[in-house]
């Protein structure tokens, strides 16, 4: 797969979700906790392009998993989608998933069939008391066929497709009898059993060894090429993003801070957070014996709200009087490729126009 520059929507006004499987628009999710309200997502916008792999990168607490769960309407109890739309277009007309009853028939016919998900920890997502085959069969019988033998046949077939050695036998084994990599393959098999339009993978390789990770990534690449499905791949590993994704969305504290085709994200990063993230990973052959570049501080406590740009307390390029008061808006990168957008006051178009005038005049008054 080579990085391509097919347009994905950039600014909220200019979005053309024609080639998008899922279009997340201005999504807000909040959690009500005894300690106060936590705004997990503060207006997230992105499209998952048809037949491509979209990477969602960010550190813990940036809202990447919540986004995935919101699409499937399986946000944990305390959380609610307070604003925004999630348009899903697999049928002729798009459905707004947020308008569906999470327990209703329509949502249940989409979840697991048209959109399915792989989780980080396969051991907690597989049922330990049923054999692998039975669990895959369950999904097949729910969505595809009522014939038990046919379901069985398909379960074994899909296990074979994910590269499971001896699939007939594996179908009869229980999750604990399999190794971590095999369990993740079983999870993928289950997710693929109904040939979904969109596969959401939430850090599927984080708990695995590098060698197993490489196998799983190769498998996902092959399966994607074969079936043409779209994949939304959530990860914190820049290495995995570089190897697998076509387009990337970088999230920080419940907001998208930068989006770009993968090549531009790595070779022309714009947002200071993206740059810091790229520079803080140890790279083979670069700067051994020298300190790694670090970001100061850590991700802020979720109960506090940061005024202005959420990244400004850690940002090496923060501008006083602007970044700490005004939330930047997203704008396409000047001279950048189509689909490259950034949300940072450093770049033209990101400061709301009225505000920009205000800050300058305030400064003049100060003098």
């Amino acid at each position, binding site marked *: 797969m080579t990085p391509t520059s097919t347009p994905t929507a950039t600014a909220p006004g200019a979005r053309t979700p024609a080639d998008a499987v899922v279009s997340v628009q201005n999504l807000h999710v909040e959690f009500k906790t005894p300690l106060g309200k936590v705004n997990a997502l503060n207006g997230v916008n992105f499209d998952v392009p048809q037949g491509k792999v979209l990477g969602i990168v960010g550190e813990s607490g940036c809202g990447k998993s919540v986004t995935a769960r919101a699409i499937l309407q399986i946000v944990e109890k305390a959380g609610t989608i307070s604003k925004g739309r999630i348009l899903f277009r697999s049928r002729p007309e798009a459905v707004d998933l947020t308008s569906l009853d999470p327990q209703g028939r329509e949502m249940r016919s989409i979840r697991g069939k048209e959109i399915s998900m792989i989780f980080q920890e396969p051991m907690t997502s597989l049922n330990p008391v049923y054999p692998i085959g039975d669990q895959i069969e369950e999904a097949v019988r729910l969505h595809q066929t009522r014939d038990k033998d046919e379901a069985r046949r398909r379960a074994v077939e899909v296990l074979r497709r994910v590269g499971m050695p001896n699939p007939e036998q594996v179908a009869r084994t229980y999750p604990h009898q399999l190794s*971590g990599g095999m369990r993740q393959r079983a999870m993928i098999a289950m997710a693929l059993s109904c040939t979904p339009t969109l596969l959401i993978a939430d850090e599927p390789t984080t708990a695995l060894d590098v060698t197993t990770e*490489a196998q799983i990534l190769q498998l996902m690449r092959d399966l994607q090429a074969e079936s043409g499905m779209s994949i939304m791949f959530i990860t914190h590993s820049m290495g995995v993003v570089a190897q697998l994704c076509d387009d990337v969305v970088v999230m920080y504290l419940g907001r998208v801070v930068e989006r770009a085709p993968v090549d531009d994200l790595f070779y022309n990063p714009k947002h200071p957070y993206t740059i810091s993230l790229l520079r803080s990973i140890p790279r083979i052959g670069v700067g051994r014996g020298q300190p790694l570049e670090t970001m100061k501080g850590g991700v802020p406590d979720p109960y506090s709200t940061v005024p202005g740009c959420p990244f400004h307390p850690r940002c090496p390029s923060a501008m006083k009087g602007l970044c700490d008061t005004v939330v930047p808006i997203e704008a396409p990168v000047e001279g950048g490729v189509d689909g490259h957008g950034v949300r940072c006051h450093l770049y033209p178009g990101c400061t709301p126009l009225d505000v920009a005038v205000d800050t300058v005049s305030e400064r003049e008054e100060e003098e």
Partner: protein
Amino acid sequence: MSDPLLEVTGLTKHFPVKNGLLRRVVGQVKAVDGVDFTINRGETFGLVGESGCGKSTTGRTVLRLEEPTGGEVVYHHEELGPVDIGTADRRQLKRLRPEMQIIFQDPFSSLDARMTVGRIIAEPMVINRTHHGRELRDRVAELLSVVGLRPEHASRYPHAFSGGQRQRIGIARALALNPKLIVCDEPVSALDVSVQAQVLNLLESLQAQFDLTYLFVSHDLSVVEHIADRVAVMYLGKVVEVGTTDQLFYSPKMPYTEALLSALPKPDPRKRTKPTLLTGDVPSPANPPHGCHFHPRCKYAQDRCRTEVPQLRDLGGGQLAACHLADSLELKGAEPLPDVPVISAEEAVRAAASRNSRPPADVAPHSTQEAMS
């Protein structure tokens, strides 16, 4: 130049497998099965491998947190001279232990939630009766500032800290008794990328400051490449290759090392290579394959590999590998990656400044010397 601090020879650690009503021993899990390496004073020695290869067990057995089944772990103590940790008596151990500390992987379970940070850090000094009263409090405050925390943090409990800060607390505790050797057992694996870099930098600056020697156990090869001077690769309880970081990463002699290196996801979308995939999983250490343990997954395997166990042998320049074919194979090492372009940010700062018609206050371009805080 080589001044050994720790010499490990033939170290083994077997865990019995019990089964049935009478809990009879039905087998042995050979977690560590004849490991040899030497760590020189002041260096960082990396120990890498897949999960289950015995790297953590090796780290723990070296400190005698696990009783070794066999072999020798000789520690060169300044006053006592060389002492075998595995057979040292209580009196000797009491003198050795302060010199050898450990930093654990999980900063959440390695700190007692019911103790204040001050007590956690003071505990080793209380047990060894090195500091008392005011002196002890001062020392705790000093340690906290050494690891980049504030002295007033001593009265708080671990839950009030983030993962990276907790790992700093664990490091402060490990430093309390002025150790010589610290076993770092996956110290950054549980941390976010940006915090991982802070902790790695801290470990490196502490090493320079206090003349520390690290045994750095990790599964993350890029972290090890960054921090280690020499590296050993483990597979199924055995060291299969040892060498300097350059030797091991750029001219590996063991096919397993090559496979590990190629599996590493490169953070560069222009280097999308099909990795040398290892087929299958790591075999069970309770029932390892005959001959070379790696032969069932090795693409170069020959008949000899299936029957004859290869010994770790010197290939020159201090590089050792356990492979029958080490001399004849041409293996591929890691490819160095280009650095991240950063000019864009600096240009942007300038552009933004000119748009605002004057330089904004507090603008600093991205620098590599960003302070750790």
